[in-house]
């Protein structure tokens, strides 16, 4: 696997993990796991310790724990993995299936158009709405120079 496809995979895994579960379920409806899929790691929820650095460069500290659901599935010759924040088992399963299908060159373009494109548009819309909401509450501070 060359670096560019590695990067592409990281991007679609991120997109799938951050998707709205209902939208992902709708987009993935025609791509359910086939009966011969092997659930290498059935979806399981656990805790991940989030760590940060003070100011981005300082000493590491434990920020807190986040629940994460992970899942791995083998479909044909491809193994799909997913790590999803929260405890939505179905979300992790669908994301793992999508990851496995997307590695299949024969199906990649179809999934890209039918699954990734709508999710990307939806993520963009969510971000746009959030930044608009934030921009609407922007306050301009100014000081009046006190005259003597």
């Amino acid at each position, binding site marked *: 696997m060359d670096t560019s496809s590695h990067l592409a995979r990281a991007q679609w895994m991120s997109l799938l993990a951050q998707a709205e579960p209902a939208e992902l379920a709708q987009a993935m409806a025609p791509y359910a796991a086939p009966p011969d899929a*092997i*659930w*290498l*790691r*059935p979806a*399981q929820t656990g805790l991940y310790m989030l760590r940060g650095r003070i100011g981005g460069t300082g000493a590491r500290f434990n920020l807190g724990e986040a629940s994460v659901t992970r899942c*791995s599935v*083998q479909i044909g010759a491809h*193994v799909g993995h997913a790590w999803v924040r929260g405890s939505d088992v179905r979300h992790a399963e669908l994301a793992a299936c999508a990851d496995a299908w997307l590695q299949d060159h024969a199906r990649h373009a179809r999934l890209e158009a039918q699954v990734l494109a709508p999710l990307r548009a939806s993520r963009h819309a969510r971000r746009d709405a959030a930044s608009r909401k934030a921009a609407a509450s922007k306050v301009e501070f100014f000081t009046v120079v006190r005259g003597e």
Partner: protein
Amino acid sequence: MMLAAFADPVFDSQRNFRELLQAMARPGTPRALPSLPPSPAPATPEAMAVLLTLCDQATPVWLQASHPGLAQHLRFHAGTPLVDAAVAADFALITDAAAMPSLDAFALGDPRYPDRSTTLIVQVGALRPGTGARFAGPGIRDTARCAIDGLPERFWRERAALAARLPLGVDCFFVAARQVLALPRTTRLLED
């Protein structure tokens, strides 16, 4: 092509752990392993059941035959580091007992920490209780008899030589046909 592990990772490994504990407490008596996971060759499902029950990212494992599929399986499901030197391993998987290395090739522990030794998981042909070798030692009332098929003759000589170095030594699990038998370092083989 990868394989799955235990269907229910938590409860299956706990059920197996109970039996492994019981096997160590009663050496020389085979116990049935309650759940066997799928396993890539050359490891048998019985050996994989023991490995997946006992190993995690803190226990280096040594494989007698390095096999990419088996190594990948263990790394994925148990997260174990695989080591090249038998002496550095906490657990060793012996898939071909006839060709196994000499017992002093494994970690025997430190006089202050005799628990830092290698535990051997040996795939054997069959375990036949009531016949064959007679054992005595802690955990055995009088004697226990069980034939372990497929072990080379030198294994018993090497094991007898290690007995003089107690508390140093190696503990063994023998697996065959859904069963596990433990021989900790304190169990003696009796001459008939």
